[in-house]
């Protein structure tokens, strides 16, 4: 009697049972890649340098403010590079007082001091620069996840990739352009005062005071769809940002039928600041600016105590809805750029699944018939082993939560061709042993034993390449590597272990074996 028959049968049955358990029901257990179910794959690059520059600008404003509050005259504050700014005092006399103020800004290091000129530079420390870049990416991931959740995408993937990249995968999104706009928008909402002392013509001619800039408003003509850009002169100083926002909601624009607006409500801090701004600037115009575009600049008629405002701008209901989402989710700490995009429409995905399945079925049918015709009884065993291989392969994909991609389907088709290799190796060996005159029983024994070493070698080499593919590849190629690797591992079990068990059951249990069907 061959050894451990019962244990081996139990093991095979257990593997089959586990496979069926993991696979059921297949629609839910197998993850389809974006190339099969349609969707967007995006890699965003976070412009951490810009975030740093913005941070430095804010710090420069703060330092200037702090100095002026102490009665120290400031001639000039200018950013140098992304991480440093230079302060030039009105007179060197206030040098010591100025240094006391500067010391309060602990994250900055003082450099290039020139007392006689009343000039020093504050530079962000290296460590702080790294921290800022890191937190910009981390916050970016959080913000985008927030937006996507509110947009409503089933099972999105949003992860950090390397130093400054964010990987986003949105399966099944119908309108990729809209999703992209929602994700990629910085959504920095700013409230600034108009510079009403400078005329637009002067500003456009280059006669612009230091603290002001030109910002455009976009107007689209309903009839002609032509876009106009209207220039405004705006003070550079930001009075309030969307960070102090509590709520953002969509409602119909009462002044412009057919258009929608977003009404916002500030939190406690925002409400207080908004109240102060409006109180101090009655009669002036407050510009509402989103990502560098002016949306409206209403006149402040009186102090607004409730912390409420509206953003109007010829929005459609979808635009207004998306704007409300990004405002609620908050601004990205740094602008992002799309580095890589792969969008697959749902119809193409469905076609790919169909073609992939045709290839797998075709390949299986041809190989099944080939093995059956060439090796007869043994070929049938190999075919059953192959079927088992496909079952285990699918179950492993389900169990590990691996994603099935189009190249993955190709990998399965290829695995079918390669998996029977093990059986061919064994069967050819058995035939050879029979040819030199061995009895069927010893030929089977010798065939399995001698082929084993070769089988392990052949599997390991291809598995090595599959592992390398997995390590370097992107999404779809990774899928190919996974199915190839798992398919080969499964074939060690099915084509060797399982086939040998069947042979032992059929031939070695009998007292006398006349012939082998091979």
């Amino acid at each position: 009697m061959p050894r451990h028959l019962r244990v081996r049968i139990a093991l095979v049955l257990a593997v089959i049972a586990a496979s069926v358990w993991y696979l059921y029901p297949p629609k839910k257990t197998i993850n389809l890649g974006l190339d099969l179910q349609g969707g967007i794959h995006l890699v965003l690059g976070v412009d951490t340098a810009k975030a740093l520059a913005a941070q430095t600008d804010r710090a420069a404003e703060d330092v200037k403010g702090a100095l002026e509050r102490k009665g120290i005259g400031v001639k000039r504050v200018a950013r140098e590079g992304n991480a440093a700014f230079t302060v030039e005092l009105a007179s060197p006399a206030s040098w010591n007082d100025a240094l006391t103020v500067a010391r309060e800004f602990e994250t900055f290091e003082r450099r290039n001091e020139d007392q006689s000129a009343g000039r020093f530079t504050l530079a962000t420390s290296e460590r702080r620069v790294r921290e800022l870049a890191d937190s910009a990416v981390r916050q970016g991931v959080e913000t985008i996840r927030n937006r996507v959740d509110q947009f409503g995408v089933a099972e999105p993937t949003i992860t950090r990739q390397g130093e400054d990249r964010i990987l986003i995968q949105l399966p099944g999104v119908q309108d990729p352009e809209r999703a992209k706009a929602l994700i990629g928008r910085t959504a920095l909402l700013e409230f600034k005062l108009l510079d009403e002392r400078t005329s637009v013509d002067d500003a456009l001619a280059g006669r612009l005071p230091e603290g002001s800039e030109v910002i455009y408003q976009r107007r689209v003509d309903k009839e002609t769809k032509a876009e106009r850009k209207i220039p405004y002169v705006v003070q550079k100083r930001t009075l309030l940002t969307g960070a102090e926002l509590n709520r953002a909601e969509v409602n119909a624009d009462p002044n412009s039928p057919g258009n929608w607006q977003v009404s916002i409500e500030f939190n406690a801090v925002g409400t207080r600041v908004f109240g102060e701004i409006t109180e101090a600037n009655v009669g002036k115009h407050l510009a509402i600016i989103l990502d560098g575009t002016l949306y409206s600049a209403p006149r402040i008629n009186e102090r607004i105590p409730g912390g409420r405002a509206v953003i109007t701008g010829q929005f459609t209901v979808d635009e207004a809805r998306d704007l409300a989402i990004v405002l609620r989710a908050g601004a990205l700490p740094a602008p992002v750029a799309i580095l890589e995009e792969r969008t697959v429409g749902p119809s193409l995905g469905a076609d790919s699944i169909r073609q992939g399945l045709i290839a797998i079925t075709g390949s299986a049918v041809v190989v099944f018939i080939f093995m059956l015709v060439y090796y007869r009884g043994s070929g049938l065993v190999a075919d059953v082993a192959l079927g088992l291989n496909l079952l285990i392969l699918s179950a492993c994909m389900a169990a590990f939560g691996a994603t099935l991609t189009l190249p993955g389907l190709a990998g399965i088709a290829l695995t079918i061709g390669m998996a029977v290799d093990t059986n061919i190796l064994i069967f050819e060996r058995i035939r050879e042993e029979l040819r030199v005159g061995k009895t069927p029983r010893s030929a089977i024994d010798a065939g399995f034993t001698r082929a084993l070493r070769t089988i392990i070698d052949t599997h390991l080499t291809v598995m090595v390449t599959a592992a390398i593919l997995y390590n370097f590849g992107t999404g779809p190629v990774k899928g190919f590597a996974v199915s190839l690797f798992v398919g080969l591992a499964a074939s060690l079990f099915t084509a060797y272990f399982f086939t040998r068990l069947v042979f032992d059951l059929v031939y070695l249990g009998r007292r006398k074996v006349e012939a082998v069907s091979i």
Partner: protein
Amino acid sequence: MIELFRNPNWDFIGKRRRAYLVSVVVILVGLGSMIAKGGLRYDIDFTGGTLIQVRFEQAPPVARIRTSLATLQLGDSIIQEFGEAREFIIRLPLTGADSEEVGRRVQKALASDAGLGKFEVRRVEFVGPQVGRDLQLQAVYAVVAGLVGILLYVAVRFDLKGGVAAIVAVFHDVLVCFGALSLANREFSLPVLAALLTIIGYSVNDTIVAYDRLRENRGKFSSKAKAFADLMNDAVNQTLSRTILTALTVFFSTAILLFFGGKTLEDFAFVLFVGVITGTYSTIYVAGAVVVEWTSYVEGRVRRGKKAVAKA
């Protein structure tokens, strides 16, 4: 019992010079094509750029698509029919900073020409310059890592000679595949790279089967009774039916993938298809032959060395 070969005993190793000639000619034709066409064509995965796959309701003339795109001034766009007459792939080179806008502008341009009819955008791929560069580097790393991994594996399991021979065979296969890609005007893309790596694994796998047999035989007969070349030839012959049978099953699978797997997988399947053929050929003719050449070179030197010692 159906048998492809019954105790085959062909003189593969003896005819290796002729095989060298075949290999050299095939590789030279491929390289010639690559040189004539100015190198391999790379997919946007590596060059960066935008790819848009569009399906129209009615098949439009390519020229018409070209004219509506020309208004965009986006550089040299390549428009190719993809699988059927109403489906096209439009490729655009990288243009400046806002390349992710390119997709949207192309859609607008196509929509503005009413004569083109309705269309559906089925796929958009944009690869920025940074990502393209990263992928290029990764591709090189992957191939090098694959080769080194296999060299180490074979060198440890067998000997250095075997490892180097396996690598030579793999190089041979990769060169043939490159040539075939160029001759067939196909592009080098990420899936093609995946196929190449698979072929590397497959080709070595085949070679190993023959080496395993050689080692087993060497244990049986003392190596002095038979010349090394004959031992190698025996091993190739003994594993020949397995080599051909496995090649056939894999060949079926890749052929079905190539002809029924759809347009998206075509280049990938094409490389596998060519690779299986050259991989099988190189197992029989290249890998074994290199070991034989090397061994006879070493033996020759040893003999000459002995003579020199005798004279002295």
